[in-house]
């Protein structure tokens, strides 16, 4: 056995042991956070506690989380531009697939809308809805439906940024009466959260689709890549 | 901030600002650079004279601001410090003149003069430092700003010398740092106070204090070229002549000796240091260095190397004077700080003149140089006589006071060291003088530089003669007010009175 395997095995076992023991020895907290959440629910503007935590009580975490998601696309865009790919050509020209898609797509859109709406009072929300939307987009792509409008950088990037931008704008605008960032006025909280979730759904869906689109498989073959005119990197050695 | 602290700041700033401006000047702006250099040097000298007058009248000059809680940056002009400042700024002026002539048409002059001014600023800072922290700050700055000058020529040999220089000085600096930090933990900010500030400590701490003293003296001894920490100095002679002259004969080595003086007088206090039994070993170390340096000098054929070993030996006279417990020995040590500076810089200027004008670097090639370059050779002779200690040269005064001081302190063996060392001094200087004046040159001189009206360019000759004249005057007029001896007596009266 390689030393690395032994090392990995011992380390994993040690960590598993320590963690298992730690879990076993866990004492229940003195602080009762669910109770606090329950008490604050009426002021949150939504009825489902997870959504309330995600978009109201701990909305700041979600804001940064969306930033992380956007970051991944920014890096993908940057690398794509640094090493341009060939024009992509993707999808199966299969009439059956298209027919199925015609059935599936409306269903997907409805599911998206439902998940988004459901988030207010039962499990669901922007990320789940966005993922389903992205799945729809992906199926379209596999079915060979062209999504050329996504190649327009202005449209694409606006769509990507919309969620975070709305979130930020809402967070800052509510400060006007002199309250901290992201303090929704109680009466508008529900509407504002819905607005944020709506834009987030679209942006998350678009982000996930873009992440697929930005690394087309045809450009992956290093042999092929080498045939291309040399990429624009290189430049200054440092 | 009042005028008295501003003027201290100005003394430091003259060379710092000059340094910054010179760095930014283009290589080709020779005239502007020389003007700035000289203007700064003259301005500094005037300011220093002003302060000397003030210190003489017991005016307090102090500049202080807080660096971190419990540690202040303090500049203060006291009699001891201003003496060193006076020496440095006087010699800076002459060396600048000399360097302008010496480096004519050489490359990298902006860099050279920039770091040169920075060195002088550090030396002034060392001299004016009011506590150990400030001293340490400038002490390390001196190390850093000297390095580019040592490696200035960029040859393999000078880079090697620079590396050795760094090994020694950085290591020494680190030891000094430890000593200073340890003292700081024990007693807080250690300001320089005549009579020292440690004598009140608990006797159980005495072994620790001895250890700290040892660390600091080793750290300082590196720059003072105490045996066996001296090896960097002869190697550093690959630097251009003005560097060897000002820095390695005056500023750097004396910074070490001056630091030891500070530690003994103003941190430990001479009496406390004596009662700890620290002075005897220091005197022994100094004596060994004196003899060792002289012996090694005998064997050198390279003129600058011989002078370097002579420096090793002579700087330890200062340390010897410090370690003699008693006012007269102290006077001898302190006055030698000035005297040796004046004499040794003269000798280095002469060595530079021989090398530049005649292309001669070795003692064995100096035959008949006196005929070709009489003025330089006269200056050299004066300096050499001073080093040997022939009256009425300045060196005689130093040795006289050292001898009496040794008797006063009851360390009669020191007298033997002085006599042997003087004989050795004579043994390595007189043959040079013999060659210069009484031998004839067989072959024609290969002239290095185009010579003007004088035997060598005026910018090289004038500083040489001026410092020689100062060295002569310091001995001849030792009894006059404001002579080095007079000033050393003032210092001792102030150090021993409180």
């Amino acid at each position, binding site marked *: 056995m390689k030393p*690395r*395997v032994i*090392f*990995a*095995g011992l*380390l*994993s*076992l040690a*960590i*598993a042991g320590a*963690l*298992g023991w730690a*879990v*076993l020895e*866990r004492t*229940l*907290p003195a602080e*009762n*956070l*669910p*109770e606090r*959440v329950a008490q604050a629910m009426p002021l949150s503007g939504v009825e489902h*506690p*997870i959504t*309330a*935590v*995600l978009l109201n009580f*701990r909305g700041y*975490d*979600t804001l940064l*989380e*969306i930033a*992380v*998601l956007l*970051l*991944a696309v920014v*890096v*993908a865009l940057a*690398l794509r531009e*640094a*090493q341009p790919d060939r024009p992509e050509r993707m999808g199966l020209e299969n009439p059956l697939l298209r027919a199925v898609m015609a059935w599936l797509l409306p269903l997907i859109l409805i599911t998206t809308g439902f998940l988004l709406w459901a988030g207010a009072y039962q499990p669901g*929300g922007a*990320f789940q809805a966005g993922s389903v939307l992205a799945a729809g987009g992906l199926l379209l792509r596999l079915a060979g439906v062209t999504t050329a409008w996504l190649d327009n950088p202005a449209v694409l990037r606006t769509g990507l940024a919309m969620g975070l931008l709305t979130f930020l704008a809402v967070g800052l605008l509510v400060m006007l009466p002199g309250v901290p960032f992201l303090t929704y006025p109680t009466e508008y909280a529900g509407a504002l959260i819905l607005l944020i979730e709506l834009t987030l759904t679209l942006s998350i869906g678009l982000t*996930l689709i873009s*992440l697929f689109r*930005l*690394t087309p498989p045809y*450009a*992956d*073959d*290093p*042999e092929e*890549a080498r045939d291309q005119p040399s990429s624009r990197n290189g430049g200054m050695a440092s | 901030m009042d005028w008295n602290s501003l003027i201290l700041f100005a003394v430091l700033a003259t060379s710092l600002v000059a340094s910054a401006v010179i760095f930014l000047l283009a290589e080709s702006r020779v005239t502007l650079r020389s003007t700035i250099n000289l203007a700064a040097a003259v301005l500094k000298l005037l300011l220093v004279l002003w302060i000397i007058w003030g210190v003489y009248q017991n005016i307090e000059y102090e500049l202080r601001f807080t660096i971190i809680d419990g540690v202040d940056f303090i500049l203060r002009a006291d009699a001891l410090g201003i003496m060193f400042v006076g020496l440095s700024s006087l010699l800076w002026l002459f060396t600048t003149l000399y360097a302008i002539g010496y480096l004519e048409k050489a490359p990298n002059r902006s860099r050279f003069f920039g770091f040169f001014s920075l060195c002088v600023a550090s030396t002034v800072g060392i001299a004016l430092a009011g506590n150990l922290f400030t001293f340490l700050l400038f002490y390390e700055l001196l190390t850093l700003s000297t390095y580019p000058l040592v490696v200035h020529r960029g040859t393999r040999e000078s880079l090697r010398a620079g590396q050795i220089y760094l090994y020694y000085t950085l290591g020494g600096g680190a030891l000094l740092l430890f000593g200073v930090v340890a003292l700081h933990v024990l007693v807080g900010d250690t300001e320089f106070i005549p009579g020292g500030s440690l004598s009140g400590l608990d006797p159980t701490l005495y072994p620790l204090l001895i250890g700290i003293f040892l660390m600091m003296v080793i750290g300082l001894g590196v720059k003072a070229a105490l045996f066996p920490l001296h090896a960097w100095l002869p190697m550093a002679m690959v630097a251009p002549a003005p560097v060897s002259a000002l820095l390695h004969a005056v500023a750097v080595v004396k910074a070490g000796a001056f630091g030891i003086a500070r530690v003994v007088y103003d941190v430990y206090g001479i009496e406390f240091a004596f009662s700890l039994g620290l002075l005897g070993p220091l005197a022994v170390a100094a004596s060994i260095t004196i003899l060792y340096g002289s012996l090694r000098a005998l064997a050198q054929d390279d003129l600058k190397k011989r002078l370097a070993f002579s420096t090793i030996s002579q700087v330890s006279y200062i340390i010897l004077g410090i370690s003699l417990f008693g006012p007269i020995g102290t006077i001898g040590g302190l006055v030698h700080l000035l005297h040796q500076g004046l004499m040794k810089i003269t000798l280095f200027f002469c060595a530079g003149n021989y090398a530049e004008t005649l292309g001669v670097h070795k003692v064995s090639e100096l035959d008949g140089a006196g005929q070709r370059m009489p003025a330089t050779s006269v200056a050299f002779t004066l300096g050499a006589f001073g080093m040997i200690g022939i009256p009425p040269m300045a060196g005689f005064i130093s040795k006289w006071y050292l001898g009496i001081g040794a008797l006063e302190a009851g360390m009669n063996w020191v007298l033997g060291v002085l006599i042997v060392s003087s004989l050795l001094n004579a043994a390595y200087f007189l043959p040079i003088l013999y060659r210069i004046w009484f031998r004839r040159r067989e072959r024609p001189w290969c002239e290095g530089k185009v010579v003007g009206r004088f035997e060598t360019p005026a910018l090289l000759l004038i500083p040489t003669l001026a410092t020689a004249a100062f060295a002569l005057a310091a001995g001849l007029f030792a009894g006059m007010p404001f002579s080095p001896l007079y000033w050393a007596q003032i210092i001792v009266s102030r150090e021993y009175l409180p």
Partner: protein
Amino acid sequence: MSGALVFAWSGVVLFSLGLFGFIVHRHLLRRLLAFNIMGSGAFLVLVGLAQDGRGIDPVPHAMVITGIVVAVASTALALVVFRRWYRASGRTDLPEDT
């Protein structure tokens, strides 16, 4: 043994398995999969322990959703970099690893 403990222990096992794979494998895709398994383990611990005591705690659930999004983003980023690396070098592992 309570239900919470079962979930949490499963999470621990998943995390350790993932860690083992992460260290042992050289193929970057496998290492990413291992990373995702580790992530799932961590999420399971988070939700599992929250089941205990006083009913359902929504905070860990929200944390897990945030964690999943972050993991998705990280995985996507890793895939992007990996594919560019593969394209530039033709390798599926990192150069100093053998």
